[in-house]
């Protein structure tokens, strides 16, 4: 696109970003080597990655000439060294796999001297490049594992990788006297129980990670019975929200089981993060040192990351609100990066077009005078939001005429929009899928609410028109030749009237369809499936255009960017991928989650994507550089629903625990908790003006919440700085309405442009 003007200036940024990307990809690919069906992909990844590189030069991360991003702006100085280390690791990996051409290209691009790699082999730790956990091992496996750990987010090494597992497990080889484990643990327990009240809650956080690591150590060293006894004795003390993990843990009783168990690897590869005040920490440290309790101290040193802050210790409630994720809370600095959550400026649309359209519409009626209303429409978004990213931070597709028309329609509809509020609740229209015995697994509606699509467990995708306008296919090539291309209604003529029907079925997947998303221009439909592919369907011909392969495992969710062209997907392989419709390889891979990515959403300004995961965290990723810029913890179950507020400032998330949590993206804080649902929340949606939040759940209800009130709070500097939140329990005040269906779980919600709420689900007789 614009890249041609300033190719040289940009290169360093690219290469570092790409190094990240390739590195992560390499880690993943390396991990999957033994799976048979991955052969094709395995043979190509690097070549494709480089191809991608050049392709990306032309589009994805090019920044505007005005803002001229320099390496220092986006990355802290420390990051540079880290990046170089990452690069070296990638180079080594490539070389090891005899991909000399790629090595050459990457080296050239990154501007590294030829011998840098050779040096590195010897003194990688000595040169000071090593991260905090430099352990001196130099083989590729350990390097890889370290790189993944020390990269911006604690990313995970894929389970099946043989050498990696051994490295991971060897951490447990240190032997203590197995009989003493119980003594150690109960000693600590006694100490924490007798400590001052204000410290007790904070120190209790140590219990769970300690318990897990001690148990794993016992199991690793083949003390099966001791491990069982240990588990039975202390598992009851753990917080109830860890129950799911404990269940996994308790089934693991042998060293052999540890190989290939993801939960275990997560515990090892990621340090469990605790936030403890300095006073409490000193107390704990003193106690452990007095008692010479090295076993526990070792574990704390090695497997825990203790984020110490100055000031008052937190209360139990504050801790409980934030904990619950698989790897503890987010580190404070993880949420400090600047996020441009503002909206992009709406493109100026020539008003004459508006008038023409207006007249065309009112042809038979009285031709209207020029309205004053268009002025305020135009001025609505003239001012640049200070929090918005620059318009060209992410290259977006240019608007086509049809897109402009759609925008105009949107604005017109917006003027007829109902102002919602606690006294003015929306009407809800419910679309029930009847006879869906095969199982309805995903639903999506177009922005203008004209089409509805359902993904089913029998691998089909069905599209319905919910307006009187029927669905028609484009004529066949032979017939298209016959029509007059010059005629005015050529777009009408290309459609085949004979194929008009209310619904169409799209066949192609070979497994249940779990995610579905319409493109904003209503020309395409994306579907992601258990078969590991994402398919792009044309809604003109109702055929499959592309199958995007790369996930290899079930893809749980996919979504188009609000501006089209890009889409994001996430699945069982724990990596979210950013794709562009015209690339069959992903542009970005976001790795860092410790368990399945269950849902993915684009930020309204297309610069960020958010992913929810079974590890009970939510991560916000920057599309530009692939960094994780926010980690939200607090859910106690896998997250199944996410929604950005239309102004881009807030995020709502729903999980299997039936709670909706509200987040302030700018500050990186939890700002609210909505309790009321009794089962998994599968759908969340804000009304068009952000006044109402609607949530749909497996418990067959749609609930409406007062979003204005929920977000109407001042974040003081102290809270912003420390991240200590005080949540008030006002769910009942915020709940505006609860509507029960007969026997239909609510799996999708959508506000029309006029603020009518549409809900959808499959009827369960």
């Amino acid at each position, binding site marked *: 696109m614009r890249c041609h003007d300033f190719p040289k200036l940009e290169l360093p940024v690219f290469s570092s970003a790409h190094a990240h990307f390739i590195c992560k990809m390499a880690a993943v690919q390396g991990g999957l080597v033994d799976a048979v069906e991955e052969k094709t992909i395995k043979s190509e990844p690097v070549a494709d990655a480089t191809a991608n590189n050049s392709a990306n030069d032309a589009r994805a991360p090019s920044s505007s000439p005005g803002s001229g991003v320099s390496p220092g702006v986006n990355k802290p100085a420390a990051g540079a060294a880290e990046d170089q280390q990452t690069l070296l690791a990638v180079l080594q990996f490539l070389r090891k796999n005899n991909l000399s051409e790629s090595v050459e290209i990457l080296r050239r691009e990154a501007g590294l001297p030829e011998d840098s790699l050779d040096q590195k082999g010897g003194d990688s730790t000595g040169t000071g490049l090593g991260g905090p956990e430099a352990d001196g091992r130099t083989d590729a496996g350990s390097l890889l594992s370290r790189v993944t750990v020390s990269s911006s987010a604690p990313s995970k090494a894929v389970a099946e990788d043989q050498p990696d597992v051994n490295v991971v497990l060897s951490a447990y080889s240190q032997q203590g006297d197995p009989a003493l484990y119980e003594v150690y643990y109960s000693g600590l327990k006694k100490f924490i129980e007798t400590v001052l009240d204000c410290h007790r809650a904070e120190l209790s956080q140590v219990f769970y990670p300690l318990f897990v690591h001690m148990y794993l150590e016992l199991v690793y060293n083949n003390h099966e019975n001791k491990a069982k006894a240990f588990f*039975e004795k202390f*598992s009851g003390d753990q917080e109830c929200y860890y129950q799911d993990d404990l269940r996994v843990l308790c089934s693991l009783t042998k060293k052999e089981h540890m190989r290939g168990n993801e939960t275990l690897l997560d515990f090892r590869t990621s340090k469990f993060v605790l936030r403890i005040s300095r006073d409490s920490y000193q107390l704990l440290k003193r106690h452990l040192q007095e008692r010479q309790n090295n076993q526990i101290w070792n574990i704390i040193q090695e497997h825990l990351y203790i984020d110490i802050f100055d000031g008052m210790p937190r209360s139990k409630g504050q801790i409980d609100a934030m904990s619950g994720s698989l790897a503890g809370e987010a580190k404070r600095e993880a949420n400090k990066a600047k996020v441009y959550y503002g909206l992009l400026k709406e493109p100026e649309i020539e008003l004459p077009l508006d008038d023409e359209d207006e007249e065309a519409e009112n042809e038979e009626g009285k031709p209207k005078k020029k309205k004053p209303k268009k002025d305020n429409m135009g001025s609505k978004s003239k001012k640049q939001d200070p929090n918005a990213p620059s318009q060209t931070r992410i290259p977006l597709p240019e608007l086509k005429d049809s897109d402009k028309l759609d925008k105009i329609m949107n604005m017109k509809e917006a003027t007829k929009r109902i102002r919602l509020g606690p006294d003015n609740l929306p009407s*809800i229209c419910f679309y029930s899928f*009847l006879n869906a015995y095969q199982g309805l697994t995903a639903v999506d509606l177009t922005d203008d609410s004209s089409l509805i699509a359902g993904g089913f467990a029998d691998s089909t995708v069905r599209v319905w028109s919910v307006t009187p306008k029927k669905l028609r296919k484009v004529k066949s090539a032979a017939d298209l030749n016959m029509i007059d291309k010059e005629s005015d209604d050529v777009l009408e003529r290309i459609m085949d009237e004979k194929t008009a029907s209310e619904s169409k079925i799209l066949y192609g997947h070979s497994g249940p369809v779990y995610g579905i998303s319409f493109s904003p221009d209503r020309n395409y439909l994306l579907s992601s499936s258990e078969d590991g592919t994402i398919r792009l369907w044309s809604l003109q011909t109702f055929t499959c255009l592309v199958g995007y392969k790369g996930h290899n495992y079930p893809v749980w969710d996919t979504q188009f960017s609000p501006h089209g062209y890009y889409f994001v997907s996430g699945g069982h392989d724990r990596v979210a991928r950013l794709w562009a419709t015209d690339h069959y390889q992903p542009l970005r891979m976001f790795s860092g989650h410790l368990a399945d990515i269950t849902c993915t959403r684009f930020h309204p300004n297309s610069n960020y994507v958010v992913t929810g995961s079974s590890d009970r965290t939510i991560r916000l990723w920057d599309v530009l550089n692939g960094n994780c810029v926010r980690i939200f913890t607090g859910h106690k179950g896998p997250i199944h629903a996410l929604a950005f507020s239309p102004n881009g400032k807030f995020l709502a998330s729903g999980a299997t625990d039936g709670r909706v949590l509200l987040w302030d993206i700018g500050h990186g804080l939890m700002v609210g908790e909505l309790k009321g649902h009794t089962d998994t929340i599968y759908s969340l949606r804000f009304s068009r003006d952000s006044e109402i939040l609607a949530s749909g759940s497996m418990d067959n209800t749609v609930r409406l919440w007062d979003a204005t009130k929920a977000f109407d709070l001042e974040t003081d500097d102290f809270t912003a700085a420390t991240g200590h939140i005080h949540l008030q329990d006002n769910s009942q005040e915020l709940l505006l309405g609860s509507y029960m269906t007969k026997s239909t779980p609510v799996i999708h919600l959508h506000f029309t442009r006029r603020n009518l709420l549409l809900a959808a689900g499959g009827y369960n007789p």
Partner: protein
Amino acid sequence: MAEERRQKQCSVTLPTESMKAIAESIGVGQLQEESCTALSEEVSYRIKEIAQDALKFMHHGKRRKLTTSDIDNALKLKNVEPLYGFQSQEFIPFRFASGGGRELHFYEEKEVDLSDIINTPLPRVPLDVSLKAHWLSIDGTQPSIPENPPPVPKEQQKVESTEPLKVVKPGQEEDGSIQAKGKDKGLIRLKPRSTHELSVEQQLYYKEITEACVGSCEAKRAEALQSIATDPGLYQMLPRFSTFISEGVRVNVVQNNLALLIYLMRMVKALMDNPTLYLEKYLHELIPAVVTCIVSKQLCLRPDVDNHWALRDFAARLMAQSCKTFSTTTNNIQSRITKTFTKSWLDDKTQWTTRYGCIAGLAELGPDVIKTLILPRLTVEGARIKAVMEGPVISNIDKIGADHVQSLLLKHCASVIAKLRPQPDVVDQYRTDYGYLGPMLCSHVMKARTQAALQAQQVNRTTLTITQPRPTLTVSQSGLSGSTGPRTPSIIKVPSSLALMSQRPGTPSQPSPPATKYIVMATSSGAASTQQVITLSSSQSASPVTTSVHSATSALQPLVKLDSGGSTGLTASRPLQKYIVVSLPPSASSSLEPKSTVIPTPIPSASLDGGLKLERSDSPGVRTQSPH
């Protein structure tokens, strides 16, 4: 408690016996104990792992139920070939069997005859997925349409009517507080006023429905009644309906409009059938209306011709139903109703019509009421009937009334007496016990017993061919096992499943099935088995036709095999057993000397039949063990 559960989770592993059983099933004979332990631990761990993955698929499939396809998908994740052939959305019943010191859980697979499948007509193609839109909420309120759940759930209606002070409805709370502003707050809090404003649509609906219910078009009426019985949104209209009914009865009783009264009672029935309505609040209007239709002196213009008896029966049944549903210790509906009926029945001056109604009302309340209130008065009532029937003819109407009362008494009392009195039924004894009605009762009782026996036989037969509902089989056999000499068939106890049906066996409208075949089976050890097919005809002249069929038909074959194949060998050495049921229908319905006998040929070792019964209930287990 959570702790306990978790401990349990920790220790759950498959028993080593399962490993052995599985190993044997694939031909590995001797598996060492240690290998079994190691295997069971490993297998348990893997199963748990797969189950956890399968749960993910369930969650993403937006279901609450784990299906076999989830397991398949979880296996696929682990690169394991999924299990083929277990595609079922439904619950797969695992069955349990024990025998030979072993306990097994297994999945019962029936052998299916392919030709059967080919010959059966294809099932209808399931309907395609379709999309239907409805309003879940209009401006914040949920419309009461069939697509939505009832606005006020039945439980809440119940709470509202039984404990009005506790009710806090989200919608009404606001109303209450608004109204409370002008008035005394405390009062309003105590008794929240429930509003029953009807929307225009509801008013239209109400008008249409009521008009259709009492109108002349029967098709429309059926539709309207259907709507009342199923529509979930009628709660708001309930007070109007109940007033409509009670006023309607009041007016039409005076005008003796039988048809309208019947229509109104049908409306009551429909309201009661509606699963979303709780009528308790409106019983004060409905019960008087219903009782009126039971006991009113005159319900029609021509009492000698019109069948107002049917209306009384119908209303009595309604009454009994509402007693059953709504009677509590606080409202005491049943006892109050019983008292009302008894009082007017005992009154000498009561007319035959009212008398009939009282008895019908009481009789419908169940056998206990019949036993305690009606049976003791049979003699008195019999004398009264005799006076009318055999005395000088006073009025035709009285005679008809007495006749109806008589048949009513016979109908209801016979089944109760059949259960109460020991056999045999001797006419003279009945006469002394029940007076004038005695002989007739005796015949009715005998008829009732025969019918019960036949029904038991019928059930018996189905169990023999299908081998499914075992409890009924058990009962009938235990009945037979007790018989040592020639006994009447009534010894065959009515199976529990039939108890409801046979409560009212004497209804004249219920003809016995024409020419039913009863198969009586005979088994001999190893030798050819014989079956006797007895054709019973209800026609008066026919004598039972008995056919002997040599060698069992295919339907019976499996059972025969099972009997002799039992591992405990209880039945294998048993000599021939033969049950023949012969039933001679009475030559005329009015005959007082019915003949009904069963001649079981000597049944040896009766006590062993218990063993036979046991064998049958475990038959599938036996089948699976046979390969050993």
